[in-house]
């Protein structure tokens, strides 16, 4: 599916977000990415969903060089990749139904897209997608009236409508409460599993990564530190991965103590209570 050859991303201000990453990811694989904040995971995902172009190296999707795609091919390739972001990135003033149906924009013509804004097209599909994420009654609610966790479900429902081959989830559970975190991770895993989608997920929580993914990639300072099955990921590797990052180190200690159930992903952010 994906092949990365010495990918590098340097931003305009000279900061190196991704230094040198080479990876191969097969169709239908489930891979978790962990690492301290600022390791370059989000930048890596923005390159993987083809919105950011690598400064150097080659990014291949199904054997084809992404940089060589024409505009139309790039659009088609993007339509095959569904992204769920840390922030929900929805348009708050639109009703939920339109945010969900926006998953169709990769195939809809402009007149169809416009017509659907006036009279929603395929509401049954949208409702089914919302039912899968547990909020079918919110179809016509205004999006900015939903809670953080509900908005994250809307974002997932949109990806369901998009029905991509690859799902990229960039810290999808860092703004929801612990019980919902597990629900969302397992939901994405099951969805991807049953339709053989490739699932890549950035996770702040080491425990979620080790529990639910057969392959875990550790990223630090824009490089891959390890790429292993979860049972091969030792405490030493994790300690090295997070060395110097206090919050995450504390997370590891708590995991070892067994005091924390789901790891750091479950810390509710301000404004997102239970």
């Amino acid at each position, binding site marked *: 599916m994906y092949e990365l050859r010495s990918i590098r991303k340097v931003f305009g201000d000279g900061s190196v977000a991704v230094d040198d990453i080479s990876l191969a990811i097969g169709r239908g694989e489930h891979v978790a990415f962990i690492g301290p904040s600022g390791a370059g995971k989000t930048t890596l995902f923005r390159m993987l*969903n*083809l*919105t950011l172009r690598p400064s150097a190296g080659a990014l291949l999707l199904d054997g084809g060089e992404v940089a060589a795609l024409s*505009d139309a091919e*790039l*659009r*088609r*390739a*993007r*339509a*095959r*990749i*569904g*992204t769920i*972001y840390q*922030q929900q*990135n*929805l*348009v708050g*003033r*639109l009703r939920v139904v*339109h945010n969900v149906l*926006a*998953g169709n*924009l*990769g*195939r*809809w013509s*402009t007149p169809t*897209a*416009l017509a659907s*804004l006036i009279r929603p097209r395929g509401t049954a599909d949208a409702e089914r997608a919302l039912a899968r994420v547990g909020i079918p009654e919110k179809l016509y609610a205004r999006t900015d009236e939903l809670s953080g966790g509900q908005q994250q479900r809307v974002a997932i429902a*949109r990806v369901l409508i*998009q029905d991509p081959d690859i799902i990229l989830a960039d810290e999808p559970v860092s703004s929801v409460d612990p019980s919902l975190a597990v629900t969302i991770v397992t939901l994405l895993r099951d969805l991807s599993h049953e339709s053989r989608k490739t699932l890549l997920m950035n996770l702040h929580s080491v425990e979620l990564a080790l529990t639910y993914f057969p392959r875990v990639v550790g990223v630090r300072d824009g490089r891959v530190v390890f790429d292993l099955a979860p049972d091969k990921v030792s405490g030493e590797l994790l300690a090295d991965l997070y060395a110097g990052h206090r919050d995450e180190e504390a997370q590891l200690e708590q995991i070892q103590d067994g005091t924390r159930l789901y790891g750091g992903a479950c810390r509710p952010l301000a404004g997102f209570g239970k």
Partner: protein
Amino acid sequence: MARGSTAAPADRSPASASKSAFLWVFGAVFAVSVALSLRTAQVDPRLLVEGSTLANVARFVRGLFPPQLSREFLGLMLRPALETVQISVVGTAIAILIGVPLGLVATASLTWRGVLHERASRVARWGLGFVPYVVSRGALSVFRSIPEYVWAFMFVRAVGLGPFPGVLAIGVAYGGMLGKVYSEILEGVNPRPLETLQAAGASRLGVVLYGLVPQALPNVIAYTLYRWECAIRASALLGFVGAGGLGQQIELSMRMFQFDEVLTLLAILFVLVATVDFISGRIRAWVV
């Protein structure tokens, strides 16, 4: 932190010294210019309490009452009142026609910067994007930096007396303001949803329709309505230079010393403005 706190006092003294020196110089220049201007502007407070001034004021105030409420006069004023509303409506419509296209071109995120132009060539970015962007920004700032009153004055010279120059004046001056504010609203939207739509394979128009428009539209409508409120006030004022409507009647009555008519006209204007404020306030509350 510690280093910052030791460095701060040393840094502060020269800065505050130059600051207070500036204040002194500025204060002195201000005082001198006020003193000089008082003479040139012929400010003479004694005039305010002089007998003839007070008599004039008294005559004017006495003249206001009772207001002119004869059926004939009110009937005659119906047309100018309607004309004022019509000038504001047509003027605002023209302002929208000018403001929308120029405002869109003056929006950097639509012409040359941001997610919509990720693959534009350098030549296209400059020739088709940046150059028109700068030109329309310039046009908009010329349109709005000349007051509508001055525009009306020029249009009266060009097309003659009547409501038409008033309409044109409001259209051009407010078109400049609308275009500027439209472009600011469009550039101020949250870019994250736009990138999300792009990542899902949406076309550029798709990104605009589902990301940009829904975020911007309520503010665009609200600001346009606010400008319409301003336009009805302005259209009354424009009458003073001969651009029709209630303003022209107020000016005529003033010149004929018919102050009772002036009071009636001001009351009509007040009712018009209050009604328009109310209507647009309701629409805005509904849209936003």
